[in-house]
């Protein structure tokens, strides 16, 4: 279990119970420095509890947790300056302050904060810089949360369902922002309900179900997606044919031999991330990690 690369987050045997019910049940997790890691899972799977424990916002009942070389249960000041947090529940506070005022103020908390105006521009709120928070739309307020999360130049950024309530254009802009932050070396831990978001952003995804990590890997490989049976479909005269096979290449070669030139209507598909995800979270509890 020794991580082969430099890890930002190492979790072993993490447990958290709420009134007897295990929300997180012996969870093991490694997140490497510089990667974007997406935690997926249905509601109640333990995503937010796990992230809150990593952020130092919640106590754990058991297991060991290491975040940037520190136990998040201790959360010393210097460590807090190195992480950025965007909580799942949007903060409605400070409604009478303007975007510029709240960012200018929070920048004072950090030893090496980014320039507030630059951050405002980064999240696309330059036009609203002098607007009071309570006058912003839901999506704009969420961008203030994100701005506050990246203001302190964090090495590790937690984003708990950051794009809930975003329209498609805002989501796309947000993806670009995350890609740029990741490109600059920020480690990013993301929870999301949007599988296309995980697929677009994450270097690796982990699927949580019933408080355990049931799979972890790149979006293309998770759950054996890349080696799973492929479905080969084509048109056999007027009839649509569809065959599931372990050896799609051989089938396509045979079809090619039977046809003169192009095979009509040919597609080769593997399970989508969504198919794989749904299979994983429905899997029996002893499906085993990884």
């Amino acid at each position, binding site marked *: 279990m020794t991580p082969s690369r*430099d890890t930002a987050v190492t979790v072993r045997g993490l447990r958290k119970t709420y009134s007897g019910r295990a929300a997180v049940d012996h969870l093991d997790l490694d997140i490497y*420095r510089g990667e974007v890691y997406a935690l997926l899972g249905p509601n109640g799977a333990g995503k937010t509890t796990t992230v809150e424990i990593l*952020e*130092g*916002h919640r106590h754990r009942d058991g297991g060991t947790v290491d975040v*940037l*070389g*520190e136990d998040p249960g201790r959360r*010393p*000041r*210097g*460590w*807090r*300056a*190195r*992480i950025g*947090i965007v*909580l799942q*529940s*949007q*903060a*409605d*506070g*400070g*409604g*009478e*302050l303007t975007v510029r*005022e709240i960012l200018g*103020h*929070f920048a*004072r*908390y*950090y*030893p*090496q904060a*980014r*320039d507030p105006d*630059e951050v405002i*521009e*980064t999240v696309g709120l330059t036009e609203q810089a002098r607007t*009071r928070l309570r006058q912003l739309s839901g999506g704009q307020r969420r961008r203030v949360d994100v701005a*506050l999360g990246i203001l*302190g*130049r*964090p*090495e590790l950024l937690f984003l708990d369902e950051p794009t809930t309530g975003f329209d498609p254009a805002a989501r796309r802009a947000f993806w670009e*922002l995350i890609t*740029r*932050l990741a*490109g*600059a*070396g*920020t480690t990013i831990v993301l929870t999301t309900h949007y599988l296309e978001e995980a697929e677009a952003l994450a270097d690796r995804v982990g699927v949580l179900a019933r408080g355990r990590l049931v799979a972890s890997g790149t979006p293309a490989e998770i759950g054996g997606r890349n080696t799973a049976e492929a479905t080969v479909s084509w048109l056999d005269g007027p009839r649509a044919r569809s065959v599931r096979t372990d050896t799609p290449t051989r089938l396509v070669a045979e079809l090619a031999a039977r046809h003169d030139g192009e095979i009509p209507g040919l597609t080769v598909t593997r399970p989508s991330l969504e198919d794989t995800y749904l299979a994983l979270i429905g899997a029996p509890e002893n499906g085993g990690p990884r």
Partner: protein
Amino acid sequence: MTVSASPRPAASGGDAARLPGAWPSAVRLGLLRGGLEIRSFFRQRESVVFTFALPVILLALFGEIFHGTVGHTGVQFRQYFAAGIIASGIMSTSFVNLGIGVTVDRDDGTLLRLYGTPAPAAAYFIGKAISALVVSLAEVIILLILGATLLGLHLPTAPGHWVTFAWVFLLGVSTCALLGVAISSLARTQRSASAVVTLPYLVLSFISGVYFVFSSLPAGLQHIAALFPLKWMCQGLRSVFLPGSFAYTEAGHSWQLDRIALVLAAWLAASLLLCVRTFRWQRRA
């Protein structure tokens, strides 16, 4: 649309010693927060109006309703009540405002947002204390001006009286502010906060010599009131605004300034302890 510079290289520890001298002090951040709190408060116009209006209206009503004198002391009822209403006004701008304000901060995520930053917790409390002091001072100035112009409240000229006023004000505001923070932990949501805070505020106002002459209250209620700070704040302010001869009618036949200081200081220490022990960053589940 640029993201500046890469994150700092990984360091082994997470301790503050890593960046010597780079941390702003809790006091400095607290002052900044205080400025922010005050700005926010004065931008909420309806809240400002009603915070200041209640004691002002009470002051005006009492001035209209009561015209007699307290016993044969020559002190008019409205002078007597003016001192009490100023004390209760201080409690309202500190205890009530913070009791509700901190619950709101807890409920709307302000506290949790702060908790995740490197800002020390003390900065939050210092900011709240500063805003309570400034708002209370504004309230007291308004009440003093109205009291003096409309109700015949005698503003003292002897500096000693203003010294008394200053320490009663400072001890009163700090104690009530801390008690407000402490009671905020009792309220589950901001919707219940005003009910939770109003009960002790109203009951204490009734039994502490704000709406009634204290010495005319039943002895049992006087004893209960004497356990809490408001009674002593009222008494301290009466010593400032009423003639010295009135002291004889007080419960202890004197102003008991030393006892006022002692009780308020004890409450200050107790409420600080209470705050530290009960403070919660997150909503109760």
